[in-house]
């Protein structure tokens, strides 16, 4: 009758994600970081996705992100990707720990048009609790969780079983509940993303974000089209400049997943030549 200390590789990933959520909750509580656990085992059981989560997703209060990154680093976590590597919204960075697995730190949620600070504060105001691995985690309220999941499904393409569960939820809502969800989307400036989830993007034809949501919701894989949609979605000069600048950025993720130094000289030139070659072949700019 003895315990066994397993090798790291022997821990099922589904178990590891639960434990990671618990550990991140402990860290946040210990160091006074506001964060919300999203998706996976922290979410409403009806919407827990298929396939199961492979990492622990958390949305961190933007002003607390530097502190939390420092805490993770000092706790043995290693950053694997940068925010700029994440997506058209540059919204998340991946971290890894040998014991706890992967965590996806979000500084913003794709689809919310209000500032990340405003969006987080709105979600925080109606937060609830969920028990994961017998530890308390802080999660968005029910309506807020639905919107978060809907936006995620909208940019993942309409192919996942978890999306079907969400659509069943929408179909079962009363008119008042749907109105409440649409009001929440309006408050967070997430109407276009919600429309993409509901298959109503036509209602937003001409909206700057229309093409970007159409691209992702259709599960397309043409990088040139993606970049054009990103350019069109820029709401001001600063965002336009940021999109253009990111087009020339070479990621720091090396083969094997470690972060490397910013590529310079021949490395940078080589990466850009590779991108141009892909673009000419129809793959677009990565």
């Amino acid at each position, binding site marked *: 009758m003895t*315990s066994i200390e397993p090798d790291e590789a022997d821990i099922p990933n*589904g178990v590891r994600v639960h*434990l990671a959520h*618990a550990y991140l909750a402990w860290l946040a509580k210990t160091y006074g970081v506001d964060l919300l656990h999203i998706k996976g085992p922290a979410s409403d059981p009806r919407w827990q996705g298929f396939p199961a989560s492979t990492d622990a997703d958390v949305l961190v209060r933007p002003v607390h992100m530097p502190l939390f990154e420092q805490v993770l680093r000092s706790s043995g976590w290693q950053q694997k990707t940068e925010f700029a590597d994440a997506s058209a919204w540059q919204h998340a960075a991946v971290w890894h720990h040998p014991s706890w697995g992967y965590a996806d730190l979000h500084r913003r949620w794709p689809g919310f048009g209000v500032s990340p600070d405003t969006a987080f504060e709105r979600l925080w105001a109606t937060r609830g609790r969920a028990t994961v691995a*017998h*530890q308390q985690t802080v999660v968005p309220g029910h309506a807020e969780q639905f919107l978060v999941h809907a936006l995620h499904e909208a940019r993942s393409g309409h192919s996942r079983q978890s999306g079907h569960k969400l659509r069943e939820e929408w179909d079962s809502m009363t008119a008042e509940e749907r109105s409440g969800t649409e009001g929440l989307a309006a408050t967070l400036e997430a109407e276009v993303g919600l429309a993409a989830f509901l298959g109503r993007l036509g209602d937003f034809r001409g909206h700057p974000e229309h093409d970007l949501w159409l691209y992702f919701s259709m599960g397309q894989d043409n990088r040139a089209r993606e970049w054009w949609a990103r350019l069109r979605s820029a709401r001001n000069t600063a965002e336009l400049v940021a999109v253009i600048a990111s087009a020339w950025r070479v990621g720091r993720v090396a083969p094997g997943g470690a972060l490397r130094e910013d590529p310079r000289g021949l490395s940078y030139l080589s990466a850009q030549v590779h991108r141009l070659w892909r673009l000419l072949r129809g793959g677009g700019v990565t």
Partner: protein
Amino acid sequence: MTAYRIAPHVAWVDDEVLPRPYGPEPQVYIADLPEGRPLVLSGSSWAIWSAVARWQDPADIIAAVAAELDVPPSGELEGQVYRFLEQLADRGLLERVQGRD
């Protein structure tokens, strides 16, 4: 008499959360926050942990373990359970609390 309860800083996951069984028998994964390095308990040790999750009094724990393992409560079983409870308490995974006399 000493009673036992799971320490509040312990995260634990029964493998029933997985969509399919991972092994031939139930397992529970336990991690001391923030130490990490999860342990896995299976078989009779899983049964003891499951019992502690529901009961604090050793007599209740032993009865639950005996029922789970489908064996009669015996002095030998009682000794094994106590030793394992103490082992887990020494590791900080369980707390010793004042039970009823």
